[in-house]
């Protein structure tokens, strides 16, 4: 029983094997990709392992506190930011091995030419609640 975050990067991950930008796919290939993602999430709901999945807009704003009585300062978006998150899925699984297995399946989503993208997904464990029995 452990939760993992599967992070999909726009930038920052190593290059995928089938590394063709989505705007150069055919519309059918895009549909097939979307269907794969949808089916994957639905299947995880069926196995009782799905927690959450969200996609993020590529452009964000940096915000920071600027002192008492002043509005927060905003900056960006920065075109040069090295790491850019595209979206995530949260899963609740019995083992690390199962999390790796599922991440591998998600990375097999079809892309250009209908072939798997082999995209690198980042797998991060959630910090848990502390166990009751420690010594």
């Amino acid at each position, binding site marked *: 029983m452990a939760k993992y975050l599967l992070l999909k990067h726009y930038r920052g991950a190593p290059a995928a094997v089938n590394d063709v930008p989505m705007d150069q796919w055919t519309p059918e290939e895009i549909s097939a990709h979307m269907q794969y993602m949808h089916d994957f999430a639905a299947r995880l709901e069926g196995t*009782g392992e799905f927690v959450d999945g969200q996609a993020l807009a590529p452009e964000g704003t940096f915000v920071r506190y600027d002192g008492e009585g002043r509005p927060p300062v905003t900056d960006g978006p920065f075109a040069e930011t090295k790491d850019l998150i595209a979206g995530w899925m949260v899963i609740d699984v019995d083992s690390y091995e199962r999390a790796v297995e599922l991440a591998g399946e998600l990375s097999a989503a079809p892309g250009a030419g209908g072939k798997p993208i082999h995209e690198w997904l980042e797998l991060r464990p959630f910090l848990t609640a502390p166990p009751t029995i420690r010594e």
Partner: protein
Amino acid sequence: MDEALLRSLTPRVLGILVRRGADFAAAEDAVQDALVEAVRVWPADPPRDPKGWLVTVAWRKFLDTTRADAARRRREDLVEEEPAPGPTPAVDDTLQLYFLCAHPSLTPSSAVALTLRAVGGLTTRQIAQAYLVPEATMAQRISRAKRTVSGVRFDQPGDVATVLRVLYLVFNEGYSGDVDLAAEAIRLTRQLAATIDHPEVAGLLALMLLHHARRATRTAPDGSLVPLAEQDRSRWDTRSIAEGVEILQAALARDRLGEFQAQAAIAALHADAPTAGETDWVQIVEWYDELARLTDSPIVRLNRAVAVGEADGPRAGLAALAALDDALPRHTAVAAYLHERDGDLATAARLYAEAARRAPNLPERDHLTRQAARLNARRGR
């Protein structure tokens, strides 16, 4: 309304339906429906015979569902309204439900969810909240678990060890939502102990009671962890400790030692010490030796190294630690602690910081970061 009573009746009512010939999955749904109905009706109109009421309502709901299904399939399965009493069960129904819900074909998380619902009488929503997953996900996990065990014969004897592992997980892992999982684990283990005479069931119950007794002192008001040595022992629950010790002593007297009895014995030695300094670490090391023989778990050997460090000094503890794989969870934290006791504050501070980065949960990470900061501040002076 007495919700504890209501939920304690769950396994017996479910057992009766299954004995009458209902399949487990449908019977379980029917019992849940009956529990919901009871919560609605009982406050204004409490039944004289709560169990009889639940059986009647659950059986009616089972028949309604079965008839609706049958109609949909255009079949004419006739179900007897008043079934003949089945053969006298050889094994207690409640016990059979524990076995079924902890069946080895289930994954740990499925077994936990099914146990909490079918034996504990919790709703899917409550279980979902306790494990921080969406209700739909938990519903699927439970119905999948029911399908997995649907072919298992109800009167087949099971393995107590698998049940104990599930109950241990309920006690030890999970989040505090509406449901107090630790208290629920104790209730379910107590109920199991009343059903089957087994020293390891008693051992687990004692272990839970002894740890539960310290619960109020384990975290500070700000949520930070308080290590055992710094806990306010005057606030430990002496009734819970006394009960745990009594149950443990009766179990140990039967001379069939198992890992839960050994763990409980260690917890009892901690509970017995009026101050941390008076802890009988020599005996604790001996119990860890027993435990290592019983389980061969690297975590046990890690905890043993801590105990050796207390009994024979930090150098001895570090020597015991050196024999273990440093990739073990909490290995670095233990090394940091032993180096601090040995007076090597620079190494201890560095290891505490490293342990914090590898901590599997937030309170432990914060605790280790504070330890590193405390030593760094002292060295900076």
